[in-house]
């Protein structure tokens, strides 16, 4: 049982590899990875405001304990820095270029 707990607690560190390297990555992996995989976090690219709304949704609907102000700031600083929307490349003001050529599978 002790070995299982050790392995399970090691997994936030292992799964931190899913998240982009950066300040407080391991903290984000430990806090977010407690309930779900860090892939769920790493798949998203959002503005600070939308990450903040996402944290609030976790608290209100998914049973996440509310992080205190200091922790919340650390989480949002990481998320808005390393998981922000990609820069847009618009040639006509109507939105980004279509991916061309297609990437290999």
């Amino acid at each position, binding site marked *: 049982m002790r070995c299982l707990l050790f392995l399970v607690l090691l997994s936030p560190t292992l799964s931190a590899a899913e998240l982009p390297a950066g300040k407080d990555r391991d903290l984000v992996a430990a806090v977010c990875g407690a309930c779900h995989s860090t892939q769920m976090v790493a798949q998203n690219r959002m503005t600070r405001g939308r990450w903040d709304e996402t944290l609030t949704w976790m608290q209100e609907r998914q049973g*996440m*304990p509310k992080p205190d102000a200091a922790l919340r700031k650390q989480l949002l600083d990481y998320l808005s820095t390393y998981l922000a929307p990609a820069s847009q490349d618009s040639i006509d003001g109507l939105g980004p270029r279509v991916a061309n050529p297609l990437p290999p599978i």
Partner: protein
Amino acid sequence: MRSFDRRSFLIGAGVTAVAADLAIKRLPSQLLQAAEPDLMQDKKSLRVLGDRPLNAETPVHLLDDEVTPIERMFVRNHGLVPPMAIQRDLKDWNLTIDGEVNEALVLTLDELKSRFKTYHYHLVLECAGNGRAGFVPEAAGNQFTYGGVACPIWDGVLLKDVLVAAGVKSSAVYVGYYGRDIHQSGDTSKVVISRGIPIAKALDPMTMLAFGINGVDLPALHGFPLRLICPGYPGSTSGKWLKRLWVRDRIHDGPLMEGYRMPKYPLRPGSEMVAVDTEIIEQIPVKSLISAPKSNLSHVASKACEVRGFAWTGDQRVTAVDVSYDFGQTWLATDLKPARNPFGWQRWSVAIKFPKRGYYEVWSRATDTSGRMQPMLVPNWNPKGYLNNAMQRIAVSVV
């Protein structure tokens, strides 16, 4: 060996005391997950999007079977698979049908199978978020590309027959489902997802309570022992591991009913979606996929290249699939087969003779009975990334 102190371990790993407390309160889901057998052991060809909860899509070139085999069916979970499904333990299982009915029913699986006629329908199941990866700016959630869709043969009874047996009152408006899946937090009192469908859809003769896929009992991942199949509606309405169907006198309001909604007024990409200006997703839009050849194939110019795939819609049936290999300047009709039954996907194929060597894209565009076609660009931007039915493109190098 020193007694194991979880908090000290986490703090030693560079995590603050506050975060350590947060992580400790949430351990149960990791332990539960660690104890599960490998639920993906028969699905190694799928691309895993996340392992907790488990979500995986099928590479589109592996969706070339008219009847999707179980090992190529995508996986979509909001929570954890319940232990009773993994152990295939039917001892305490039953399905309750209650609410706006004349007589509430409580049925075991055997009773369901013996009281009601079994049907076998070829029905598309598609995640509303299939295609989410195409949205720019990025939409939140699992980044499905083309493989959040499958069309096996579902074995089961008609929801209509069960509801008629219970006697649906004129006050019935919606039917909400409850399942046995377990919340990510490990809190067994929390409902993971509880969506529903309008009563007319529930009484539609193609809406099923399925206990089998392609002649075998539902696997744990796909909702053992019983799930809903609401064809032509988003996959989130096809609830798994059912325990209760609540016939309601109002629109259902279970967890995630507030989720699967689209903007009523088309949004500028990247802008805010206001809850009051949204509507529940019902019928899914017309779509097609190219299952062969695999993108970035090299093809010999002298031979005609067979391109094929499937097409489906939430609105009756697909009436045409056309392809273009010159970026939409000209279109070729394909040979489109009829569906086996309503809401089954339809096979299309065409042999393309490329005019000369070089690099080409092939696009497929389906049209349905409403007269609508698939768009070229990703339509209806929304922050959740639902209902991207833009045309699929493959690359072909003709040598």
